């Protein structure tokens, strides 16, 4: 029976051990130390720690001290003393092992160790036992007492907690590792996409993966004869294997197109190669083409890719695929499309864009995409593509979404026609309108359109004074009028606190009530408008655009 001194010794030992387990940052070092201290304190000849392997369901010895090394010994749950402790989640005490039917004497027979007396306690967590600690044979031949069992139970609780925590941490570390690797894979995939070319390059692409990694790709490269070759593709399926396949198919399409083979033959070659190498059930939708900047001619061919969309002054025209996807049947003859691009825009969308949907609604389809493009017609190619992607991002994208746009950037730089700073006071507006009328007259803009544009700009100024500056003041508004070919640009800069574009109220025209007409006027009169924070986050910039059409907008004799 332990007296007072023994109890204090036991408490000191427990406190130290619990602290060591609780503070441990590396259980692989702390646990063997703890087990050794337990064996010493309890004067045991041997001690061992068993854990349930969640994969196999077996109980495996992970640590032991004593004359026989049993690390790696596997037991069924329910088998022997340890198996019982785990199965029943109760402490097992064996006073005389040699006559106790619960004891598995096979180990003794194999090792020559003689087991006399055992205490075994389960390592218990909120989700049940995860293993057990066992001490064997008191040194000097004595027997273990009930107090020894209580002591071991007291030690087992923090040990179980520490082990469980470590397992959770391991799980988190593993998750983080997988995320890091996926992130790396995604970055490597992005590196495969061509770099945005500086200067006036006619192709821009954007890829939005639905998950970390994408099965979509696009590419463009210069051919030896000066033409530009382009590719866009979509691997069937999603996830990791689609992503790996994407890497292979992207390089196959580049390789088979680098000599400037006509698009139909280019696809045929890539198709035959794909039929040999793609796994069962996998296929690739792809569109390949070439663009000649010297004469504006485009030729392309599509293997099961969604319809290409041409936007011109006359509206939209779509071009459906010229043959089945790659990798299904060998020796396919693909058709080809030829057109002269001129100032038109040719869009290639992977089906992720067509399948985009507003929350709870039908997918937008080709029609929805056309409307979306039409709503950004006034913008230059790059901001237009960004605006489209912005629209798509606001929707639910179930699939990887890729857009490639072929369009000649406008040649000439914008010309500034008016640069007019004025105080933000309503009395100034009359003078501003007069200056704007003059500038538009000088461009040969017809009086009807001129008055409409003046109205839109005046409404915008009014809104800046009323809502950004909250009334007349002496701060500055700057109006700039620019022209780039047939595109007029109107820019209003102010120094007022930032205005949230989402909070601008608007209404439908035809809704008869006073007020709130300014924004609908601007929307009705301009091709597009956008409000952005000013440079360095100071003030606001409102940009509006209007394309001049040669039939009627311009006075011909000016």
């Amino acid at each position, binding site marked *: 029976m332990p007296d007072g001194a023994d109890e204090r010794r036991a408490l000191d030992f427990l406190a130290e051990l619990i602290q060591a387990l609780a503070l441990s940052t590396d259980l692989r070092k702390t646990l063997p130390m703890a087990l050794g201290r337990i064996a010493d304190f309890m004067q045991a000849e041997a001690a061992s720690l068993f854990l349930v392997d969640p994969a196999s369901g077996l109980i495996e010895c992970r640590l032991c001290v004593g004359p026989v090394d049993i690390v790696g010994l596997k037991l069924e749950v329910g088998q022997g003393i340890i198996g019982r402790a785990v199965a029943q989640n109760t402490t097992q005490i064996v006073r005389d092992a040699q006559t106790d039917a619960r004891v598995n004497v096979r180990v003794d027979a194999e090792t020559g160790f003689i087991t006399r007396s055992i205490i075994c306690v389960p390592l218990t967590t909120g989700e049940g036992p995860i293993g057990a600690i066992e001490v064997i044979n008191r040194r000097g031949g004595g027997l273990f007492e009930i107090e020894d069992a209580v002591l071991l139970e007291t030690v087992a609780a923090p040990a179980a907690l520490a082990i469980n925590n470590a397992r959770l941490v391991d799980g988190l570390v593993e998750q983080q590792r997988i995320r890091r690797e996926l992130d790396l894979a995604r970055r490597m995939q992005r590196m495969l996409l061509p770099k945005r070319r500086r200067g006036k390059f006619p192709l821009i692409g954007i890829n939005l993966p639905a998950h970390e990694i994408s099965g979509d790709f696009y590419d463009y490269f210069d051919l030896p004869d000066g033409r530009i070759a382009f590719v866009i593709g979509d691997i069937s399926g999603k996830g990791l294997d689609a992503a790996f396949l994407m890497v292979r198919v992207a390089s196959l399409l580049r390789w088979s197109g680098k000599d400037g083979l006509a698009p139909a033959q280019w696809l045929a070659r890539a198709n035959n190669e794909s039929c040999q190498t793609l796994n069962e059930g996998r296929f690739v939708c792809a569109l390949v083409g070439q663009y000649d900047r010297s004469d504006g001619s485009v030729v392309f061919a599509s293997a099961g890719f969604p319809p290409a969309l041409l936007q011109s002054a006359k509206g939209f025209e779509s071009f459906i695929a010229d043959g089945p996807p790659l990798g299904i049947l060998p020796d396919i003859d693909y058709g080809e499309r030829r057109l002269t691009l001129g100032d038109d825009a040719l869009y290639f969308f992977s089906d992720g864009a067509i399948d985009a949907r507003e929350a709870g609604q039908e997918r937008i389809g080709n029609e929805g995409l056309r409307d979306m493009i039409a709503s950004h017609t006034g913008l230059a190619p790059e901001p237009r593509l960004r605006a489209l992607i912005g629209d798509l991002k606001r929707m639910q994208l179930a699939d990887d979404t890729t857009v490639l746009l072929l369009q000649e950037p406008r040649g000439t730089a914008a010309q500034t026609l008016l640069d007019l700073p004025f105080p933000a*006071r*309503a*009395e100034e*507006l*009359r003078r501003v*309108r007069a200056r704007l009328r003059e500038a538009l007259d000088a461009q040969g803009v017809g009086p*009807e359109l001129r*008055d*409409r544009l*003046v*109205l839109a700009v*005046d*409404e915008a100024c*009014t809104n800046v*004074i*009323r809502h950004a500056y909250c009334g007349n003041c002496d701060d500055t508004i700057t109006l700039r009028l620019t022209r780039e070919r047939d595109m007029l640009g109107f820019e209003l800069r102010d120094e007022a606190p930032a205005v949230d574009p989402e909070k601008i109220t608007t209404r439908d*025209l*035809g809704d*008869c*009530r*006073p*007020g709130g*007409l*300014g924004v*609908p*006027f601007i929307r*009705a*009169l301009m091709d597009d408008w956008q409000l952005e924070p000013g440079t360095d986050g100071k003030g606001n910039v409102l940009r509006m655009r209007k394309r001049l059409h040669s039939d009627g907008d311009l006075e011909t004799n000016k």
Partner: protein
Amino acid sequence: MNNECVSETVGDYVVVRLRGEVDLSWSQQVRKAILAALGATGKVGVEMSEVSYIDSSGIAALVEGLQNARSKGQQFGLVGVSKAVMAVLQLARLDRVFPIFPDLDAARAG
């Protein structure tokens, strides 16, 4: 052309004559003149043949006048609307909402 807003009484009819460019700088003055006229009589017309420009704040003053008159069963119309004003009314789809008369006689005849 200077901005001007003058109210004249012709029998039981008050005509508010506007001239110039109606914009934010004085549309409140126009609004008050219209509401004052509606306070004085049951038949009001806004004469706009010499208005070369009107913005949405000017249109708002006209809409408020119309709504005010309707709620009290009064007559309210636009008289001699200039081309510039008509273009903005059409844009706001209000050209069929306001009674529009070619001249004062037609307006008074209702």
